């Protein structure tokens, strides 16, 4: 399960994209709940990459549907980078 600190950082990064002020939770989805189009998702990913100083490959994106998915992926990439 994603680490709370990672989740909180991601919530903060999502805020500017969360135009409708949807309440954020680990299970919130980008497409259906937040209604982000694929271009916006990619901009958000860029923000997350820069915040954590990692690279989130495009190949991973189709599997990242919820905030928890992203947080888990971020934690894993950070850990792999050692």
């Amino acid at each position, binding site marked *: 399960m994603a680490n709370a600190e990672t989740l909180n950082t991601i919530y903060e990064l999502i805020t500017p994209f969360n135009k409708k002020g949807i309440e954020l939770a680990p299970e919130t989805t980008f497409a259906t709940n937040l209604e982000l*189009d694929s*271009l916006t998702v*990619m901009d958000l*990913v*860029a923000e997350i*990459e*820069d915040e954590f*100083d*990692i*690279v989130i*490959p*495009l*190949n991973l994106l189709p599997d990242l549907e919820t905030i928890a998915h992203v947080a888990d992926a971020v934690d894993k990439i950070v850990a792999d*980078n050692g």
Partner: protein
Amino acid sequence: MDLFDKFDPIVAQKSALPFTKADPFKVVMDEIISETEAMINGRHTILAGTNNYMGMTFAEEAVEAAKKALDDFGTGTTGSRVLNGTYGGHKALEQTLADFYGMESCMVFSTGYQANLGLISVLAGKDDYLLLDADSHASIYDGAAMGNATVVRFKHNDADSLEKRLRRLPEDAGKLVVVEGIYSMLGDAAPLKELLEVAKKYGAMTLVDEAHSMGFCGENGRGVAEEIGVEHLSDFIVGTFSKSVGTVGGFAVSNHPKFDILRTVCRPYMFTASLPPSVVASATKSIEGIKRAGNRRAHLWENSKRLHAGLKNAGFTMATEKAESPIIAVCLPDLHQATLFWEELILAGVYVNMAAAFATPGGVNLMRASICAQHTSEQIDLIIDRFIKTAEKVDLQLTDVAAE
């Protein structure tokens, strides 16, 4: 289960567009009067959205060469480049392009789309990294999807964003950075010097797609890399014959000593028929013509600046601050108004491309004009005039430039 059900949202999106008098997806050119004019639906129309930048579609030498090739070699090769589809003409065209670019090797593909698919899908393999500009053309994204590399996207035209990502990758991993000279939607030029220097600093190979810049950028018309003087930093240059060259086909040039091996590993090169001899012949003549076409290039730039200035002064919101290419795009506030604008403009006798927000970088609704070297100054003024009248017709608010 009807397999077409999944397209319902797209069908709905499309049918929600308020087109009533014309449909941008169903434009039929009934008669091509010249490089710059056609009959569309019985109306005499100025073509300002055909990517025919250098106006080579009726270049006399190219037409003559195509006719002769038809007579001498027939209508098609009926085969792949690696089987029976390489004629003398294909080799001569590759030599012409290699000479044009001052590079060692050239591969001619059946389209530019396939050139990008072929190169990008194989150059970056399973353990390699592919770094793409966020606003890359579909053929670049599709090449990435077809290959096995880890795909990393950096912010459009942003060398810092590229550097940050390169810095995070393993130092010894293979890397390919892919950029375009001119981006096709907004017509903006890439800061190639900064981008390519960063790529080289991190040991990456570089591919520059000059699809929309060949013909008019650079002294010889080789593209933005020539113009800025960074061709030595480009490992691969990809281009197309479907724009400035005025026919169809694609190519890649390189100085890499092992370049030729790509002919045996690029599936989009091997598993499709080669270009017909007539197309090859006209492409060859057209490229030779482009090299000598300094005057045309100059006139094309004048046209582009004239159109940009005219629309900007009229108060349109321009996609770029100044004319960076013959692609001059204006931004419309919403899809509804864009639809009305496009429709009224074509009824007024000007064809441009409409690009809806979901298909453009930054989600803007665009009227995208592309200018031809054969447009006269009068035609450019007519286009400007019809843009202004159309704006009035659809109640598009233009900014009062004089007041600013």
